[in-house]
């Protein structure tokens, strides 16, 4: 035993030495770089949206750096981001946030993907008073916890599909509708659900199916069988990218006829590309669409952003990428107005943010959510085999009329 004990002691002391030499932390600003940190889902169930987020961040970092960077106290700085993979796991995300702040010495954070992970990171950034601009945590409960260092460039989740219910009621001559809904069991989708419950109450609509879907979502046939039996006026589905893909796949396989299908994450799932005509008439909530008329000097218009993004990454940017890019613009703006790297000065500058980006107007409410930007709805429409997302609401940007009701499968070619 004593030899083993010696071995063990040697092992421990070796590790001790290694750790002590590692502890030297980096600075928040290194030479000409402002270092931002972010835990992103590169693997696991949110990996596709995690990559959309990362691409959005990278695109903005490149663009801002190329166009002169950030000017603070007369000196030009460039952005740099340290990424870790949170594996789509809140436990890991919280740990990595701690690591970014304590070991890598990051003083400014960018958000992760999804509400659940943001919920896990926010207590950490709050504890260390690290300003975090996040672009992908929409759950309303994030903004009611009194967080002072959390800023979200997007609209809260409960607003996603409320408008869709209003549209359905309008098409029904102002009378309440019958709603069937199925939501993934995660923070974001459950918040979308709460928004629908509010809308149903307000419009006197009735919820006749209220299902929960598992996290590793790849089957919702049970819900769809019920939908076939009770014939609701609206079917609402939300479950990130996998939810959107599963819904369209099974609705078309089972030939489920509903007059209106409202979803989230259609553009992130590239529905119109992946499922083509099968996805036609799906109504989708979105934070952003390239046809919107917002502008800024870095990316120009939404259309220009989409073109540049397409060139760089080879696909049309979903709103997850656009809002992520916008987060960097917000940070740049705040640094320049604060004219300092003091965390509290930057935080105060963030509070006063009022700007227009290609993604939309940004102004933070008392809870940290963006209050200056409406949600939009688009509908997948096809010409031949070519399908596209067309904005149908709000009317200011609508390029197409909302098509209602969805024709029956037997009548679709």
């Amino acid at each position: 035993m004593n030899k083993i004990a010696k071995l063990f002691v040697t092992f421990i002391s070796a590790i001790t030495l290694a750790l002590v030499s590692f502890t030297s932390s980096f600075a928040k600003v290194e030479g000409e770089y402002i270092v931002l940190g972010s835990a992103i889902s590169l693997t696991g169930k949110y990996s596709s949206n995690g990559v959309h987020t990362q691409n959005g961040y990278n695109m903005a970092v490149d663009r801002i750096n190329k166009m002169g960077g950030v000017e603070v106290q007369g000196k030009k700085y460039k952005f740099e981001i340290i990424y870790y993979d949170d594996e789509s796991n809140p436990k890991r995300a919280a740990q990595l946030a701690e690591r970014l702040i304590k070991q890598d010495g990051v003083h400014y954070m960018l958000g992760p993907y999804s509400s659940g992970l943001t919920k896990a990171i926010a207590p950490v950034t709050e504890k260390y008073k690290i300003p975090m601009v996040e672009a992908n945590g929409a759950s309303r409960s994030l903004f009611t916890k009194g967080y002072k260092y959390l800023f979200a460039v997007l609209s809260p989740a409960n607003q996603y599909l409320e408008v869709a219910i209003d549209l359905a009621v309008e098409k029904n001559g102002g009378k309440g509708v019958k709603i069937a809904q199925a939501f993934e069991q995660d923070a974001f989708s459950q918040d979308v659900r709460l928004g629908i419950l509010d809308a149903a109450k307000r419009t006197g609509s009735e919820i006749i199916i209220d299902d929960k879907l598992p996290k590793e979502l790849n089957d919702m046939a049970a819900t769809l069988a019920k939908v076939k039996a009770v014939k609701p006026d609206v079917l609402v589905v939300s479950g990130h990218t996998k939810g959107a893909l599963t819904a369209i796949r099974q609705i078309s396989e089972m030939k489920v006829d509903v007059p209106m299908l409202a979803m989230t994450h259609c553009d992130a799932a590239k529905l119109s590309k992946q499922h083509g005509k099968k996805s036609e008439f799906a109504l989708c909530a979105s934070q952003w669409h390239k046809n919107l008329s917002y502008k800024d000097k870095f990316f120009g218009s939404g259309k220009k952003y989409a073109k540049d993004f397409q060139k760089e990454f080879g696909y049309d940017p979903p709103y997850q990428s656009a809002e992520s890019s916008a987060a960097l613009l917000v940070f740049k703006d705040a640094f320049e107005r604060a004219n300092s790297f003091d965390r509290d000065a930057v935080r105060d500058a963030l509070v006063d943010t009022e700007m227009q980006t290609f993604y939309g107007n940004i102004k933070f409410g008392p809870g940290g959510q963006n209050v200056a930007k409406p949600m939009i709805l688009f509908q997948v429409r096809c010409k031949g085999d070519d399908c596209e997302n067309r904005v149908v609401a709000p009317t200011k940007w609508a390029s197409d009329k909302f098509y209602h009701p969805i024709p029956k499968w037997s009548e679709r070619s």
Partner: protein
Amino acid sequence: MEKVKQKDLILYSGLIILGLAAPYLFSAFKVQLTYLCVLIVLAMTWNLQGGEMGYNTFGNILFYGLGMYLTASVQVGMFFPLAEWTESGGEKTFVHTTAQYFQGIGVGLLVSAIVPAVIAGAIGYAILGLRGHYFAICTLGLGIAAGEIAGGIEIIGAGQGFTTPPFPAEIVDTEARGKFFYFLSFALLVGTFIFVKYIYGSRFRLILNAIRDNEDKAEAMGIQTMKYKIVGWMCSAFFCGLAGGIMGGLIGYIDSTDVAFDGREMGVFMVLMAILGGKGTLWGPVIGATLFHFFKEGLWTLILGWQYVALGVLIVVIVVYFPEGLMGWLREKYPERFGEVIDEKDRKAQVELK
């Protein structure tokens, strides 16, 4: 004998001093160190079933998750209406005072130790009659079922998750939270180690071993195996519940399947760590968990996107080259250092018998 004991004493006091000094020496690594303590506790308690008793359980994650939810629920429920706390979009904000926070977590941890132990007793009574693979698969189901059920209970946040009470804002020191959870988990680790070491020197361990080696014979010898199996599981559940409670407070956000009943990660890790170090040994799980944690923290970020492939390779390497774990491997190579005497005559005699 005296000499060995003195050496042990030096080793233990050295480790305790290192443990107490660690959060000051490696201030930036407090959270990782806390994780390490919890991982060791999980590996050691799993070893009681998987290593000593020969019952490969995937169900210990159930107690870990239960402990997490219980601690948080008690901590909130003692002072505020739990349903309003977990309701998403609730406009009210509840803030724990410093005293409330610590009272809450204290009582919460007590509950999170006792209730899982009781539940382990009840479930154990029902399923510990199963043996081998049947038991393993049954316990695998336990963790998954618990995750799905917890995801449907509104009062603990359902799919929204449960944000645990934030560390009291009146404590200005930003390091205080990290230190508090580290020392809590370190105390748990020391407690667990003393308990397991005590078991290793007791008749109880011999009975567990007898069950592992041949349960029917053990029963024929007059041992009430069921009783001991249940008690063994309850002991594990007690410490797993505490570990979960501490983790919940540290992470700050409980999600039903990804944080609490996280069978896919924690549930597998605890098995892997025990096997890596060597199951059925006192130090095996400790060494296994330590190595695993360092491997994970050190390498995973370097091989972004490939970390699970690397983990898969690690599992294969362990199973192929170290089926008995590191301790088992060392023991085979240097048996005399483990106090084993090889009687050449006896060995030859056995070979001849075969």
